[in-house]
């Protein structure tokens, strides 16, 4: 069927073919990161714990997106769409968190305590 068609711009197949060694290497790295993120919970690093956990998650997500989802070899526009989604998510969560910090102390005072604290 397709032998009648001229393969002028897809002689090398459509899209990039990821080598098996790369796929397995990425998977091994993802496993290392998973072990790392569980192991780090056994060490108390104070507020750094959550940032390490998130950093490892971002690294894992980056590996999945770049290699399993082919973004490394794709049109950069696809990557731009993904990055813009995360950018808008950061704006959404960031501004929401700033806002909640503004009024949280008011609602934090339990209703049963407020009359005494405020003085009627």
């Amino acid at each position, binding site marked *: *069927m*397709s032998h*009648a*068609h001229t393969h*002028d*711009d*897809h002689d090398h*197949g*459509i*899209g990039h*073919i*990821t080598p*098996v060694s790369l*796929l*397995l290497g*990425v*998977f091994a790295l*993802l*496993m290392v990161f*998973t072990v790392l*993120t*569980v192991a780090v*919970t*056994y*060490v*108390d690093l104070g507020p750094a*714990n*959550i940032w390490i*956990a*998130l950093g*490892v*998650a971002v690294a894992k*997500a980056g590996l*999945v*997106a770049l290699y*399993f*989802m*082919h973004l490394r070899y*794709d*049109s950069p*526009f*696809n990557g731009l*769409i*993904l990055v813009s*989604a*995360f950018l*808008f*998510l950061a704006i*959404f*969560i960031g501004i*929401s*968190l700033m806002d*909640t*910090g503004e009024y*949280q102390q008011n609602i*934090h005072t*339990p209703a*049963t*305590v407020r009359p*005494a604290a405020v003085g009627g």
Partner: protein
Amino acid sequence: MSSEHGHDNHPPHLAHHFETPKQQFESGKLGMWVFLATEILMFGGLFCAYSIYRGNHQDVFLYGYGALNKYWGATNTVVLLASSLTMAWGVRAAQKGQQKLLLAMLIATFMGGVGFMCIKTIEYKAKWDHGLFPGTMNAFYYKNGAPAYPDKIEHAIAYIDAHNTGGHAPAHGGEHLADAHAEAPAHDEHAAPEAASEASEAHAETAEGHTAVIIPAAFGAPADVSLIPHPAVTTETGLLDTAIDNAGVTVLPHAGHTQRVWASLSPEEQGKVHIFFAIYFLMTGLHGLHVLIGMAVILWLIIKAAKGTFGKEYFTPVDIGGLYWHLVDLIWIFLFPLLYLIH
């Protein structure tokens, strides 16, 4: 080429409005990425709820996450990452025209989804067995300042405290209390499960090895408190009484795992624990729904692959279905540390 473009002169999978299979493939992919961006933003709403709630109620999260099993969570991470590997491998097989390998990889990916959902079911069942339902059914749900299900909350507290203090997961609250008391000397009368299950207690193991026991009056304290022969016993006078303080209760040291027991939560925060479970069930539930949809897509791909539909020239559905599956994986990569590895 395009000037001669007619019905007989193009591959069967190439739609008329595309010049080449490559253009068709790239367009389909672009559309999928736009869809995935909307998926990320949909989950974003839940991540936002999570961030705000965790930011304002650290203690509630530290307490509630004790009900989650990080090893099941880690196992599910491995299962999902492995199924992502087989999916990516399947795309490669499709690109190279390896029909049998493609079919095998798709089936392996599907089985990964089955494994993930099985583990999720085990986890959900453990929650439900201890009254940790989502929403107003939750054992920790408070109504008018008091637990809506006093009998259920007692059971759920014992379950979570056992996890938080490193005890064994109890089959039911009574066994946990019996076990915990058996560890301390001179508590023989509480070794009997039926006696212990009648006592409504949340208890904390302190750094010095003392046991602090709080008996919230609202849960129905045992008739004779002196039955518990321990100096550190305190009795709460009322759950939302402003006069309450946690005097006599030693909170666990915050080294290593920061562990919280029910007694260390302030009374106002105790009524908010059910919201942690609402967030947990919404996030993992929406994610689980995506796993099921992904499995349905992969099943469809398996059927098509078995018919030999895909080859070097046409594998767009495999690639795009794969992108969806990887996104499900991507979201779990963030859910796992945020829900199971709270520190």
